[in-house]
């Protein structure tokens, strides 16, 4: 019977290959897997904390898992290192810390494709569960950029046109090199770009820093869900850049 293996972040390729070979089921704990109030984690994780890692703890509270791999190296963050302590105490199953420093580049065709931005992110995050590269895709001519991690609230992505190219850690995810800072800090100065980070995330410094260097950029952050202020700011930025925002506007 296949086991249910939780993953946090992007575990090393060798780990993913092992899970796949065993025919086990991967559950991405970074993504909301249960419908339950996130405040249920408040006894274990402060409310003013990365919403992705609070989601990890929420999933761990509700899901039946046989094992968890949590990446705590430079490809994830120190917060994950500390949250690993919390979930190791919460769960009666092995919680294995990994430090993904894979350097073999798989490319990032999804990041530059013409797919709707939300679909790009769905496929990229799903791709973490496979050791196979994404098939080649035609590159679209970009109208704007999204830099950052996959947001806790994917609805934010509906604001962007399909011609949005993806940069930052999400590109590293697709490339299967999550600790590649050189790739993470890459952006296109010719493209109006939204530098996104989760509130309370260490990467917010990099987002702000790179946005200041970029000639046409804004840095935004959001916590559990994207509020109207964040949506409106992105919408106005795109509109004022001459880009027709997507249908998921602030209204």
């Amino acid at each position, binding site marked *: 019977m296949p086991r249910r293996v939780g993953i946090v972040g992007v575990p090393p390729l060798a780990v993913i290959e092992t899970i796949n070979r065993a025919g086990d089921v991967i559950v991405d704990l970074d993504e909301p897997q249960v419908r339950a109030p996130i405040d249920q984690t408040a006894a274990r994780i402060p409310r003013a904390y990365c919403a992705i890692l609070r989601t990890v703890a929420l999933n761990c509270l509700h899901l039946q898992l046989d094992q968890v791999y949590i990446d705590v190296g430079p490809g994830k963050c120190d917060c994950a290192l500390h949250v690993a302590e919390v979930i190791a105490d919460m769960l009666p199953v092995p919680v294995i810390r990994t430090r993904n420093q894979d350097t073999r580049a798989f490319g990032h065709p999804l990041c530059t494709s013409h797919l709707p931005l939300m679909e790009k992110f769905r496929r990229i995050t799903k791709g973490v569960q496979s050791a196979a590269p994404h098939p080649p895709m035609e590159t679209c001519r970009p109208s704007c950029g999204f830099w950052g991690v996959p947001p806790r609230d994917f609805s934010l992505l509906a604001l962007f046109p399909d011609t949005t190219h993806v940069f930052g850690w999400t590109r590293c995810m697709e490339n299967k090199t999550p600790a590649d800072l050189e790739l993470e800090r890459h952006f296109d100065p010719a493209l109006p770009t939204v530098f996104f980070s989760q509130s309370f995330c260490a990467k917010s410094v990099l987002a702000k820093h790179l946005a200041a260097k970029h000639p046409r950029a804004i840095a935004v952050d959001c916590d559990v869900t994207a*509020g109207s*202020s964040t949506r409106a*700011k992105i919408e*106005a*930025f795109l509109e*004022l850049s*001459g880009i*027709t925002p997507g249908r998921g506007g602030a*209204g």
Partner: protein
Amino acid sequence: MLLADFGTSYCKILDTRRDSTPRIVATRELDRSFRADLATGHNAARRSLRSINELTALARGGLQLVDRPDFVLLDCGSRDIKFVRIHNGTVADMGWNAECGASMGFTIELLATYYRLDYAAIPAPATGFSITCGVLGMSHIFDAVVAGVSETEAVARFVRGIALNAHRFAHEPDELYLSGGLCANPLFVASFPCRVHPLGRFVLLEGLRATLRQGAENPARQKEGKPDID
């Protein structure tokens, strides 16, 4: 063409064919069936044929009204604050705070009615409360009054605190242009720690007019989207 800036407390409406100046209607008194041709603000998408984002309207309005290549424009509304920073004639930065900046204008108006105050007759106080929003700031007023401060002085400190917070939100410029109904509040305007140029409450309407003009000048490019950020 009927243009509307749907504010939380007041709606600013301009019929470009009939009105020489906009009219102001309390939002709660606006007919539910009212529909504009082009609008911005609260529920604008539902109450108009076409709507644009408030930050977009603010930026376009500011670019029409301020004849300078570099400036900061801050809009203080009933329930939120927003700013745009223009550099070399294009938008360089912007912000919108509907959460921590909540209910600023609304609370200032509420307090004047409750304490029967005339803001034109109150000098700016030397200090202000350290507050981040109207709701949290109210408790400072009550605490100060209990401690023996006059109601007028306590409200004045509250208003100054609100102005300081809005100034910080706009990244503390040495000089700023102010938009919104609070331009008519002398105490609020005098409470900023910088030079203030009040532009009045029709800046967003001016942004709508600019949007109309852009569309009329080049409808094809308008449909595709003409950049205000270069």
